[in-house]
């Protein structure tokens, strides 16, 4: 029998606010344990939470970008459970009335656009971290306690590990475009839990699902899901039943293992948080947030295709990261032909940046400089080949292309008599090859071009060189 997977993802995104969700402590990553804490985030007796307005704004921004409706009346709830890294014995989260609901994002799978529904987006606080260093004791670091999170819950609309990966990439791109999350899975600022079930292809109703936790890297999204789907198929085909349970992804062994069964599941005893007042949406404020939403990856991609005539492939690559897309737009705005700009960026520039793992914001070349270089090619001042050398130099030094061309004497030679001199010398020096060419080995033309270029240090105008060579060799 053939099975299909039904997958829904719960994504936790750490918000890029300067301070925590309910107090003024810093959210900076990597400080000494318990140095970014106060009476509020350590759960001292008598303290009260006060909502960071930025957190609400970020959640609403995200909801709007993901086509959600923003609840006119939303509130926080307490999720009760005991754990040493949870100082109050409950997590302030949202339950019945989340801030955003009923949205969707679009992903492209095998050239087809698919909608993945967003069930809800809610705000909550992160827990701290337990540190186990042996010696019979564990330690608790509460620096992370109270760092704001968004939980983005998808509908069970995802049908394959590949789709899940595309969905995660799209979420990440949107979050980064909005500036609400840095999207770094390895550092834990983007985390993913997956609800996975299988069913025979064609059947309507869902199978029993297992929740897979601890998928903490982009690489593992597909791997963990592939493993879990295979496991469930194996169970069913072996005559067994999939259990409703929580499973942990073990990246080292590449497997998922049972963490707790349904019977052991927590009863979180959710109830409305009485220490915080309900959030009542104000239309004016919502309109303001909407007005300041940036252009999102999908819109940008369409515009790059429509306005700049870029192929889908180029547009998709250039818009996956907002800084790259904006860099490209600046190159075009500085007068470069869009397709040429795209070629240089996706080719040489990305290769060089990737080699050094350097973000485009730290690139030594400015968009204006790349545009100037492209203009030098268009004007015939340098050849495309020379441009590669110029570009590498620009990347290394940050120098202007005009200066580099001038100082290194890279200006293309379009003086016919000078080229003719070199052509004549090469023809005179290679009588054998001339004979073979005349005997029909026309592919030897490349050999002559190379020899002349070598003689002229690559600076000959290629078009003129080609014409001259053909004329002389056939003469």
């Amino acid at each position, binding site marked *: 029998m053939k099975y299909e997977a039904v997958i829904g993802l719960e994504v936790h995104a750490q918000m890029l606010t300067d301070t925590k969700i309910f107090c003024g402590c810093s959210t900076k990553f990597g400080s000494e344990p318990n140095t970014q804490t106060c009476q509020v985030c350590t*759960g001292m*007796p008598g303290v*009260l*939470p006060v909502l960071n307005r930025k957190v609400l704004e970020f959640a609403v921004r995200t909801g709007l970008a993901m086509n959600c409706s923003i609840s006119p009346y939303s509130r926080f709830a307490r999720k009760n459970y005991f754990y040493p890294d949870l100082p109050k014995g409950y997590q302030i989260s949202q339950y019945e009335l989340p801030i955003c609901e009923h949205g969707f994002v679009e992903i492209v799978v095998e050239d087809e656009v698919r909608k993945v529904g967003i069930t809800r987006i809610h705000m909550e606080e992160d827990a701290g971290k337990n540190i186990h260093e042996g010696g019979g004791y564990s330690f608790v670091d509460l620096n992370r306690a109270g760092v704001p999170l968004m939980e983005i819950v998808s509908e069970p609309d995802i049908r394959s590990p590949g789709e899940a990966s595309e969905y995660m990439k799209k979420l990440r791109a949107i979050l980064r475009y909005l500036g609400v999350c840095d999207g770094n899975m390895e550092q834990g600022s983007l985390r993913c839990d997956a609800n996975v079930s299988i069913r025979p292809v064609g059947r309507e109703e869902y199978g029993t699902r297992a929740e897979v936790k601890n998928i903490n890297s982009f690489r593992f999204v597909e791997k963990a899901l592939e493993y879990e789907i295979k496991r469930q198929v194996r169970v069913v085909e072996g005559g067994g039943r999939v259990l409703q349970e929580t499973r942990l992804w073990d990246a080292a062994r590449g497997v998922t293992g049972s963490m707790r069964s349904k019977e052991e599941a927590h009863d979180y*005893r959710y109830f409305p948080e009485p*220490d915080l007042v309900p959030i009542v949406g104000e239309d004016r404020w919502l309109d303001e947030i909407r007005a300041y939403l940036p252009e999102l990856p999908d819109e940008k991609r369409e515009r790059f295709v429509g306005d700049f005539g870029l192929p889908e492939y180029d547009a998709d690559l250039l818009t996956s990261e907002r800084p790259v897309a904006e860099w490209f737009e600046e190159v075009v705005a500085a007068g470069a032909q869009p397709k040429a700009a795209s070629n240089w960026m996706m080719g040489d520039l990305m290769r060089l940046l990737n080699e050094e793992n350097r973000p485009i914001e730290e690139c030594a070349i400015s968009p204006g400089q790349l545009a100037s270089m492209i203009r030098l090619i268009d004007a015939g001042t340098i050849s495309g080949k020379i441009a590669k050398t110029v570009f590498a130099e620009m990347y290394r030094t940050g120098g202007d292309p005009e200066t580099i061309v001038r100082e290194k004497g890279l200006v293309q030679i379009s003086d016919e008599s000078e080229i003719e001199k070199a052509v004549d010398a090469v023809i005179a020096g290679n009588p054998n090859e001339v004979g073979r060419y005349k005997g029909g080995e026309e592919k030897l033309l490349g050999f002559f071009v190379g020899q002349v270029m070598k003689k002229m240090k690559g600076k000959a105008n290629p078009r003129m060189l080609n014409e001259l060579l053909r004329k002389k060799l056939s003469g």
Partner: protein
Amino acid sequence: MELSGLGIHDLVRMRDKGEVSSREILDSVYKRIEEVESKVAAYVTLTRDEAFRMADRADREIAAGHGKPLSGIPIAVKDNMCTKGILTTCASKILHNFVPPYESTVTSRLIESGYVLTGKANLDEFAMGSSTENSGFRTTRNPWDTRRIPGGSSGGSAAAVAADECIAALGSDTGGSIRQPASLCGVVGMKPTYGRVSRYGLVAFASSLDQIGPIAKNVKDCALLLNVIAGRDPFDSTSAPVDVPDFTAAIGKEIQGLRVGVPKEYFIEGMDPEVEEAVRAAIRKFESLGAVPIEVSLPHTDYAVATYYVLATSEASSNLARYDGVKYGRRAEGRDLMEMYMKSRAEGFGAEVKRRIMLGTYTLSSGYYDAYYKKAQQVRTLIKNDFDEVFRDADVVLTPTSPTPAFKLGERSEDPLRMYLADIFTISANLAGVPGISVPCGFTADNLPIGLQLIGKHFDEATLLKAAHAYEQATEWHKRKPAL
């Protein structure tokens, strides 16, 4: 009379005339504490050294011409409000060693007003109780009869005021915990509107019901204390952005034509006849002052106690989860995490606290939530609607504060349900969020104080204080002192 026997206004008047220093006032209060505290046991912690430092600072400020409204006034604070650097136990063994690293908003405001902290007053553990017998450390006695309870949970605060072991006090009121002990100890106690006073730094029992308020020797002192502690606090989102009037300005005004609603549901069978008689007499007194008594109905009163015990325990079960032995307070050693949790909480909490945590855990559990918590929230709305309805006709509502005068120690401690009924007249105001005040309105044949309760509209404490003051000034009850 000794200085310790006076109220805030009398002392302020003498202080401003230079007749008395802060140190003299505090000397008198501490002398009184030394005399009677062994009998009353009003305090968990006495802060003598700190108190004298504060008094001397007040004297220096007064001398420099920088006197403040409460400069040099000795005030007791219920031991569930955080005082920076000063032990704050909630009368619980689980917090026996807890020294807060921060100051609650109310005590910050008292400090800014120049107050002198006499000590931290006893209470039922985590404010859960009506007799102060649930304190994890000691049982406070009623100054009028030390074989009897002072009421609770702010029993230490009310007893300290009644016994002149302080000039005034702060209490907290979740279901009657200011008003009921004030009534049983013959002093004035007020629960302001929910949201009027910041809860930041008040160790939470039931967050949607808790409210801090003053306990004092007379209504005008109550008004002054309320002036100091009331107002929006950025650290408490539930504190209301409502203007704070000068509550003392309402004092002394006529109550001619004031419509006093008397709810028929509050004069129930089984009520102590002496209490009923005293309250009926008080209604006649109000009438003689020009007020107009009208019969009103609060039809959902019968459900108030049940509603309260579902909601309050639900919230408490969550609020008390943080006492796990991990971060502060008592930690029992265990072989593993679970054993440490269980032993710390089993040894740290008293029986009533455990009972309420279990009740609240149950009512929030999946499968029971709708039948208990959610239903109780719905009934709470009905009770609130009852008051909205009544306040279309009445300016204030008048009831007994407690169905009985102070009962004997141990009399109800084995019967939690009977104990819960001690708050039957006070609970509704917490559920509705409206303000209430208890003022002395008589004595039983055994010389035990009786109190009447006035309940007002949201944020209309001024009318309550005006009415209470008019009644107080027309009677002599507040002038009596217990013979300790």
